[in-house]
């Protein structure tokens, strides 16, 4: 047992280093390199010029971060509003043609959304939705909504109707029931769905590019020219920033969820 356990541990550490550590380290090294000739394993000299350029030199960065987050958050908020009632209906009611509704909602998981976006592009153009944040938000909805619905459905499935009935019997109306009983229970599902929704929205390139027509510059749009043959140091810095924002958003979501429950737990305190 001990021998195998040590062996697996060593294998895991090595795999982890190659798998996660090396790529990350490489990005960091590359972002602070100042000239890195082949075949040197380390850069000849270091400099923070790429970070200076990314963080302060160009106002594009923060505009792109702002656009990306604005779009991701708006998309996610709309998703929550759409998904919670839909999930409730799918879980709680015996619907006619339920399979059809599920097929419709989950179709964008299977069919690549850019197909629909290219199809609707000209219609958006005529409606004046291209080159606008609103247009991009609308385009981001269909690739993200299915995941949100799925996450909330899973949560709803574990909440027996008895809980709501119990709250009813204690005099809780529709809003109170939702706020005091349903919401605390499905919150982890909403958070999981929101994380996915934000991640997917943040990393959309093609859809944003088609509908935003280069005018709505999100992080992937800003990043692309750099990583496809631009300055490697700047490309690396942008990559790190982009990945960092994605991870930070998720961690932030996790922390917010924990805080929500802590607040719930100590709502009265030791009054």
């Amino acid at each position: 047992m001990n021998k195998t356990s040590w062996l697996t541990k060593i294998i895991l550490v090595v795999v982890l280093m190659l798998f996660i550590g090396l790529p990350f380290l490489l990005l960091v090294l590359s972002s602070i390199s100042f000239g890195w000739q082949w075949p040197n394993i380390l850069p000849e000299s270091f400099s923070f010029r790429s970070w200076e350029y990314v963080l302060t030199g160009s106002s594009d960065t923060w505009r792109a971060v702002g656009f990306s987050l604005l779009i991701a958050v708006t998309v996610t908020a709309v998703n929550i509003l759409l998904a919670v009632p839909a999930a409730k209906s799918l879980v709680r009611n015996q619907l006619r043609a339920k399979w059809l509704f599920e097929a419709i909602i989950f179709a964008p998981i299977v069919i690549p959304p850019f197909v629909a976006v290219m199809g609707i592009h000209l219609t958006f153009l005529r409606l004046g939705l291209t080159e606008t944040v609103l247009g991009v938000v609308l385009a981001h909805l269909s690739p993200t909504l299915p995941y949100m619905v799925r996450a909330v459905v899973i949560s709803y499935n574990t909440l027996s109707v008895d809980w709501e009935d119990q709250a009813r019997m204690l005099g809780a109306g529709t809003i109170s029931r939702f706020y005091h009983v349903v919401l605390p229970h499905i919150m982890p599902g909403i958070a999981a769905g929101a994380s996915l929704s934000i991640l997917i929205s943040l990393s959309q390139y093609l859809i944003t590019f088609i509908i935003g027509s280069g005018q709505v510059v999100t992080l992937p749009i800003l990043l692309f020219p750099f990583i496809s043959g631009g300055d490697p140091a700047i490309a690396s810095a942008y990559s790190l920033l982009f990945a960092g924002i994605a991870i930070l958003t998720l961690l932030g979501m996790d922390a917010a969820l924990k805080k929500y429950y802590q607040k719930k737990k100590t709502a009265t305190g030791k009054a």
Partner: protein
Amino acid sequence: MWQKSKPYLLLLPAIGTIVLLFFGGLFDGLLKSFGYFPAIGETRFEAAAYTELLQSSEFWASLVLTLRIAALSSLFAGVLGAIIAISLFLLNESTKSGTSQLWHRLFQLPLTIPHLVGGYIIVLLFMQSGFLSKILATAGIIDEITDFPVLVNDPFGWGIILTYAWKEAPFISLMIYPVLARIHRSWREVARVFGAGSWDFVHEIVLPAILPAWTIATFIVFVFTFSAFEVPFLLGVTYPSVLPVYSYQLYTSGTLADRPEALALNIILAAITILLGIVVYYFSKRWNVLKGWD
């Protein structure tokens, strides 16, 4: 009346959104792929875009490339993902839950990293003057940059395959880990009583247990890579290009006249993914991936 229609009203906003934005787009694209486009005065239906597409060698080259990349990507991701999951499972059996939790999180990191960033990491590692090439040169294994094989922006698509293997392996391990977690510790003891070593345990019990879930997860990766755009766009070559990139090229580089062809390509792509999706759904239901593990 209200009681009866209420569930449908609750569904309406979500369904409406998808129908309008997604199926509306599909339908819009379908009409235009047949050349029906009233805005520019085209009101006839013709299958010209489809026949042209199916007769072009570009299309078939693109389809072959797409299938090859999707197959290899999902296979590599599948093997790597299974190794990660089984290692984590064995580790979990011998350590405290807190530590193994941390391991899980670390291995899931690639899931959260955007595809373009993942692609760029592969560029830095595997391009001819990349990090791996530098290491090999320092070690004296290669002498020239050109001695290192072209793995990025290569016609075979190695760069794309490597990126997906890296990005999707954690997804596979995430999908099969719950099945592994249901293998009870006591089974392992029973196995040991019968004289099974660690390898026997993995071979006789763990692998058969995860096979259905693994197959489904790998197939999901296949379907996803089949229709993904960003990574091949970054790491591929202009010709041949995978179907989504080819569609994009047709859509943007040509004139309005090329657009029906791009949209026709999209419809074919959508049809293939729907088919693949149905296959996944059918088998995941039929095998009932978690059956017998409750």
